[in-house]
C-alpha cells in the first residue's frame, strides 16, 4: 500500500466509536504501518454527533483526514452517515449501519438515500447500507457490537486494506477477555 489510508468513523456519542478506533489503530500497527488517530471525548459524547479520524500507511503526518480525502467512512447511524457524506471525495466509500437514532427533523431512509445518490456537481456517492445493529440484536442479543460487525464487513469486502488475522489479533489486544467471544462473533458475522 503506497498511499495513506484514511478512515472517518461517525455516529452518536455512546455508540462505541472509540473502541472501534482502538481496534483499527491496533490492527494497522500490527500490520506494520505508521498510524495516527484523533478522537473526541466530553460533551460530544453525551448523545451528540461524534466523529473520529484514523490514518495509516508508510508515512503519516497529520492525525486528521482532510476534506474529500477519506477512503472509507463508517457511519454507525444513518443520519450521521448522510451528515458526514459532505466530506466524501471521488474515492470515498460509505459504509452505513442501517440504524436510526431518532432526532426531531430527521429524515426517512428513502430521503437519505435520495440525498446520497444526488450527484449535483459532486461525485456520486459510493455507499452501502448494512443492517449491523439489527443483525447483532437478533443473532447475538447485543446491539453495541455492531461496530465489530461493520469492521468485519469492511474487512470481508476489502473496503479496508487490513488483513483479517491482524484485525482479529487487534480485537484480542483491545477487548477485555469477558467480552472477547461476543466481539469476535460479531466480527465474523459481518465478515461472512
Amino acid at each position: 500500500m503506497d498511499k495513506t489510508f484514511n478512515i472517518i468513523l461517525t455516529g452518536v456519542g455512546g455508540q462505541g466509536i472509540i473502541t472501534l478506533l482502538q481496534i483499527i489503530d491496533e490492527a494497522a500497527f500490527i500490520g506494520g504501518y505508521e498510524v495516527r488517530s484523533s478522537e473526541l471525548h466530553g460533551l460530544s459524547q453525551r448523545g451528540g454527533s461524534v466523529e473520529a479520524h484514523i490514518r495509516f500507511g508508510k508515512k503519516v503526518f497529520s492525525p486528521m483526514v482532510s476534506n474529500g480525502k477519506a477512503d472509507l467512512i463508517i457511519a454507525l447511524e444513518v443520519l450521521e452517515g448522510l451528515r458526514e457524506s459532505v466530506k466524501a471525495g471521488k474515492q470515498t466509500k460509505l459504509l452505513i449501519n442501517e440504524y436510526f437514532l431518532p432526532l426531531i427533523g430527521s429524515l426517512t431512509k428513502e430521503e437519505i438515500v435520495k440525498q446520497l445518490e444526488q450527484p449535483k456537481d459532486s461525485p456520486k456517492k459510493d455507499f452501502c447500507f448494512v443492517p449491523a445493529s439489527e443483525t447483532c440484536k437478533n443473532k447475538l442479543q447485543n446491539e453495541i457490537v455492531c461496530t465489530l460487525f461493520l469492521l468485519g464487513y469492511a474487512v470481508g469486502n476489502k473496503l479496508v486494506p487490513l488483513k483479517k488475522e491482524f484485525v482479529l489479533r487487534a480485537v484480542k489486544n483491545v477487548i477485555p477477555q469477558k467480552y472477547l467471544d461476543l466481539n469476535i462473533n460479531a466480527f465474523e458475522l459481518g465478515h461472512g
Partner: protein
Amino acid sequence: MKKILLGNEAIVKAALASGVSFVSGYPGCPSAEIGDEFGKIAVNTGVYAEWSTNEKTALEAAIGASFSGLKSLVNMKSFGINVCSDSLLPLAYTGTKAPMVIVVADDPSGWSSAQSEQNSRAYAYLGHIPMLEPADPQECYDFTKLAFELSEKFNIPVILRTTTRVNHQKMPVEFTQDEGSGLRKIGTFSKNPHQFCTMPPRVLEMKAELLEKTEKIVAFAEKSSANKVFGSLASAKFGIITNGVAHLHTLEALDEMGLKVPVLKLGFFYPLAEKKIEKFITGLKKVLIVEELDGYLEKEVRAIAKDANPKLEIFGKNVLPEIGELNTEKIAGALSKALKVKIKDYFKIKNLKIELPRRTARLCEGCPYWHVFPVLKRIAPEGTIFGGDIGCNMIANLPPHSMDDYMFSMGAGLGISHGVKKSTNQKVISMMGDGTFFHSGIPALVNAVYNKSNPLVVILDNRITAMTGHQPNPGMGKTLMGEDTEELKIEEIAKACGVKNVKVLDPINMQDLENTVKEFLEKGEVSVIVCKRICALLAKRQSK
C-alpha cells in the same frame, strides 16, 4: 517498548518514568484521562493521586509536595489555570524544591464544554514560567520527561501546554515502562521561609532571581532538540515556523502540495529560542508562522526580524484564522497565499451542502435531571431568570429545555444570580451540579447569604462528577484512589453557610419538588434545594 497510546496516557507513562510521586488535579476535558489513569495505577505504583476540589487546591497540594521533596504532576483543562493562577504566579517566584510539571489542556474550536477559546500560552508570559508544547503522543511522552528535567535543573514549575488534538490523539509511542516501587514515598519538609514566603521587599529579590533563572533557561532552550529544523535551510528563500499539532498539519500540507520547505518547530513556547529563530529567518525572503489561535509567535518573530532581517515578508494571522483549530486545508490555503501558488482541486471539494438538524448533547436516558428541568420551567413564574452552570446541567441550555439565561464558569451561575437578584425585583433560580458546588459554589453561596440576597439555588446532586467521565468528588465518600473518606453533605454545608431554607429531595418525586420550589420562591432569604439522585449511567454501572 512501543504501544499505541493516547496523548494523555503518554503523559502518565512519562511522569512515571520520571519518578513522579504526587499527582493532583481537577477533571476536565481534554485532560481528565491523566488523573483517571493515575487513579487506577496509584496504589500499585506507590504514587499518591488525588482529585482536588478545584485547580487551585490541586496546585497548592502539589506545591506542598514539592516543598517536601516529592516530584509532582498537576493536571487540568484550560480554565483550570485561571482558577489556580493566584498561587501559580507566586510559585514562579519561590521556585520549586522537587520538580513539578503542570499540564494545561486547551481546547481550540471548543470541542468540549468550553466557555471561551482560551489560549493559555499567555500565562507563560504572565508568570515567567517555562512552557513546552507537544504535537503528538510521542512528544507528550518526550516533553513530559523534558519538563521534569527542566524543572529539576532550574527549580521552577514547567507547564506542558496541550490541545484537544494532542491529548486525544493516538499513535505508537516508544516508552520505558515504569511500574514504580509500589511504596509510597515519604518526603521531608525542611523549613526555608526565606524561599517559601512571598512578602515585600523579599518578593522583589525573588523576581530578580526568577528573571536571572529565565536567562539560564533561554540558554538551555537554544540548545534543546525540542526546537528543531525539519528539512534543509540551505539556500531556502521560504520557511515555516510551527508549534503544537499545527506542525503535523503543516508537514501534511507540504507533502500533499509536493513542496520542500524548511520548518522550524518550536517545542519551547517560553522562553523562546530567539537565536535559533534569528538563524532560521536570516537568509529567508518569506516566512509563514503557523500557530493556532492568537499570533503570539508571530509577534515575537516580527520583533526578531526587525534587526535580523528587516526585509523579511512575514505571513501569519493575515493568512490563517485566529479562531478555531487549524487543519491541513487551512494551512494549504495559507501556503498558497504566501507562495502565490494555486492549490490543486484536491483541497477544494465542491460538495453539496446538506441542511440537517443538529444532533447536540442531551441528557442520558434515565438522567435524574429529566425530572428537574421541566418542573422548574413549569412552576417558575413567567419571567423567572435561570442561572446555568458547568457540568451535565449545562444541557439545560440546549433544546428541548433551553432554560439558561447566562452561563460562565464553574460556580459563576450563583455568583451572577446574586447580582441579578440584588439589582432587580425578578425571581431568580440558579442551578448547579454537586461537583461545581464543591469546586467553587460554596464561596458564591456564602456571598449571597452574607449580602442578604435571595435566589433559589437548585443543586443537582447526581452523586458524582459526571460530565468529565465519572470522577469522585467530596460528596460521595470516596477518593480518587478508592479510599473511603468523609462524605460531605451539601445540605449541611448550606446550613453552615447560613442558609435557612434547605431541603433535600429525590427529584423523581416531582410533586415534592414542585411544592418546594413554590414555597422557596416566596422566601426573602437564600434557599437551597438539593435534588439528590444518582447519575443514571453510574447506577447502571454499579448494578453490573
